[in-house]
């Protein structure tokens, strides 16, 4: 716990803590909000937080962008997290597009993009089907 009172430790780790707060905000939107579009925005925020963590890990104090210069003594930041996150951003937009397409399709069928209303409609549908099955089986046994 002594470390938490040391200003250089706190400043050096502030980034990670802010990333945790951002990630948890995204998770909260996904879990606590019923609107499907908002859930996708929440997922994007969660994802952005992961990007931050990786890029933070690649940063070198006093370093420059990993593009080779003529100066032989130049310090570069680590290029590997950048490559990983480039791929992740492109895959992220692909999954976002798929999620948005699903949302649009759900809206077409259910007429709403609120999770609670969709569940309610599903519930009523199931009850109606069960009632229909019970009615036919009662009729069958009466005929027999």
């Amino acid at each position, binding site marked *: 716990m002594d470390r938490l009172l040391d200003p250089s430790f706190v400043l050096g780790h502030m980034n990670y803590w*802010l990333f945790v707060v951002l990630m948890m905000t995204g998770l909260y939107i996904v879990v606590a909000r019923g609107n499907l*579009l908002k859930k996708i925005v929440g997922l*994007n925020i969660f994802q952005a937080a992961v990007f931050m963590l990786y890029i933070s890990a*690649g940063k070198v104090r006093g370093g420059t962008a990993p593009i080779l210069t003529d100066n032989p003594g130049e310090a570069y*930041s680590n290029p*590997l997290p950048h*490559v990983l996150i480039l791929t992740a951003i492109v895959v992220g937009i692909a999954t976002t597009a798929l999620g*948005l397409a699903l949302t649009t399709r759900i809206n*077409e069928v259910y007429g709403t993009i609120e999770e609670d209303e969709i569940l309610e409609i599903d519930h009523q549908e199931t009850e109606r089907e069960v009632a229909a099955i019970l009615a036919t089986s009662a009729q069958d046994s009466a005929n027999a």
Partner: protein
Amino acid sequence: MELAITLFLFCAIVATAIAITTIRSLFAVVMLSGVISLLSALLFVLMDAVDVAFTEAAVGAGISTVLMLGTIALTSRTQKDIKRNNLIPLAVIILTGLVLIDGTLDMPSFGAPDSPAQTHVGAAYIARTADEIHIPNIVTAVLASYRGYDTLGEVTVVFTAGLGVVLLLGGMGARSRKRRQEEEG
């Protein structure tokens, strides 16, 4: 100074994200998510990830905002006011957050040149790119040459997602026309 700007931008992103949780208008939500993308692009530039900043500004703030605007145009513009019990999610995220923060305490401090992430394979790519690939941008060299197969895999993922979108939304116009005709006649 650089650290101060980094932390300020980070705080601005967190504040925007918290605003998104409370706003009902989906248009505002989409715009704020574009703001988050732009702010994070700035942050990436500060943290030396120029290629990532470029992609984030184009893809995150550009394409994804357009896709989301299209979606709200096809669905609805406001989030309905539905009462939910938010105590359990709140407890879950606070608990998860505390566990994650506990995990960060053992991490090397931000920008440390001797952290494990800097001392292994990354340095090898920096040393070899000039001789082996003959281009100055190391990120491009790794993406398109050293790890070219991974990029091919990424293209496969994007293709699959595109196929999924076409299958989900294909014929939507025809379906809605048919429904309208049935309602009329």
